[in-house]
């Protein structure tokens, strides 16, 4: 078993790097180590941040014994079993195309598909949430059908609307709030993955899964009202 690399991040943090690729196995190890540390936090540990292929640990350097921490991490990484989908599988309603997904027709044409075939391929996959980051609640999804992988726009948009369902390269994402992006907009969901003041403020976590449920635009207003009232609108489903 290959040992991870320990990368120093100043005196208050270090990154445990399992590899350099975007890969479910590597991400599974990240999440497994994250769970271990959260269940049994070593002295001085403040926060852990899982990303695609590494886990960043922040700690108080005046409390944490760095050498002991490295030793503990080496031991914990030996025989670490990648965690598969450990979280919730969410069904997320999406209105595809039109004003909700202004790039749908263009992306379909690029791949020689009809828009409805593109919707089929996009909504047939089970996506894994590799990480949440960039801005609060932005979910980086893996699992896009490689047949519809689409190179990013040459000109990023300064603003894409909240709830946008996007693809960029082989990645997919759910936009929690208006943000800049060079990804392609296929549709939009009324689900608010981040709502300050709602309990819980965040719906999704790294390790959760997402499936997209195409819905008719006529349902948008009701679902949006429910989401703004604090309802999750996304539903947990059983695999």
């Amino acid at each position: 078993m290959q040992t991870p690399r320990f990368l120093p991040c100043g005196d208050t943090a270090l990154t445990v790097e399992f590899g350099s690729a975007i890969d479910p196995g590597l991400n599974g190890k990240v999440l497994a180590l994250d769970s271990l540390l959260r269940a049994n936090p070593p002295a001085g540990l403040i926060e852990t941040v899982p990303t695609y292929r590494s886990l960043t640990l922040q700690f108080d350097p005046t409390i944490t014994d760095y050498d002991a921490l490295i030793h503990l991490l080496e031991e914990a990484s030996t025989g670490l079993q990648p965690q598969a989908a450990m979280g919730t599988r969410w069904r997320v309603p999406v209105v595809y195309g039109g004003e909700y997904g202004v790039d749908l027709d263009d992306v379909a044409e690029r791949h020689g598909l009809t828009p409805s075939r593109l919707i089929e391929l996009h909504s047939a996959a089970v996506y894994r949430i590799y990480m949440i980051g960039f801005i609060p609640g932005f979910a980086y999804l893996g699992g896009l059908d490689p047949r519809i992988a689409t190179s990013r726009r040459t000109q990023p948009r300064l603003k894409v609307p909240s709830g946008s369902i996007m693809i960029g390269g082989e990645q997919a994402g759910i936009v929690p709030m208006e943000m800049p992006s060079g990804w392609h907009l296929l549709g939009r969901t009324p689900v608010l993955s981040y709502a300050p003041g709602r309990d819980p403020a965040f719906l999704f976590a790294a390790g959760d899964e997402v499936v997209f449920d195409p819905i008719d635009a006529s349902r948008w207003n009701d679902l949006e009202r429910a989401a703004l009232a604090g309802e999750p609108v996304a539903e947990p489903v059983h695999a």
Partner: protein
Amino acid sequence: MTDLVVKNCGPMTSLQDWGRIGYQRFGVSPSGAMDRRCLAMANALVGNAPEVAAIEFMNLGGSFTCEGGSLHVALVGAGCMASLDGKPLEPDTTIVLNEGDTLQVGHPRSGTFAYLAVAGGFMVEPQLGSLSFHPRSRLGGLNGAALKAGDRLSCRPDAQQGAPGHLPLAPIEDSGPIRVIMGPQDDYFTQEAIRTFLSAEFTISPQADRMGFQLNGPQLEHGNGFNIVSDGIVDGHIQVPGSGLPIVLMRDRQTAGGYPKIATIISADLGRFAQMRPGSPVRFRAVSRDEAVAAARRLKEWLGALPSALVPLRFELTTDHLLSTNLIGGMVDAHAPQTSDPSE
């Protein structure tokens, strides 16, 4: 109930505490005071714990009226001078505000960030465990926003109003190159780039805010491309995008990023770095983990000793008397003319 009412202030005036802990996994920046040393000093002067939320000023001052009672406040940082109804006040000293008083906070002069603390802290509901304002998350501050004219900050009526005091302290380790620990991605750079980074003089660019400080200077060459799979970011990370010009990531930074990070500023030097104004020269020196941890311990001890360093103040003391007893040593500009108010 005593309120501090904002008469005017700069656009980046906000509530900041030690930061928001535990939500980076959801993409939420930690935020918090850019210079914890000054926040802790201001809090010590009003009898608060170091991490209690205060008003952070960035580049501009402001003015505030005290309504409904009296209040102990303190202003610390960046050579910022306060005056009460037009009368200049001693720096780094507890200020007693009475009903109807107007406190004027001048511009930060020798740095960027200053802190106004009130005894007992503000009666503002924390969001995700912190009062720190973070614009992109729409979290913290007063109703998820920066402070503006007309805002009313309620203070705790039961706050212990301790004896007014003065903090005759020299800033801790306030000179020399900014210390860094190399990594996490120093292996993405050429040997020449590493040598340049550790020997050249950079300057703080005007693009410097609570998210990050862009540096001007020689370009640092990547030896191994400049795209990595996004990984975790910490305060003080020095990332180098394709332009080769470093950006130091500060408290409002994103939680993950895809540019290689050549080095990380050690925690003890972050506050000092944050106070460097655009145009200031900056050099970096690589240190060992042991040296960085020793510096972190010294800073922690210094923060812990602030309450006992407080010298009780007797009101009849004049500025001349304070100077003669060297209580405000280091504040050579105690008599300098007050800079003009920002928004009048």
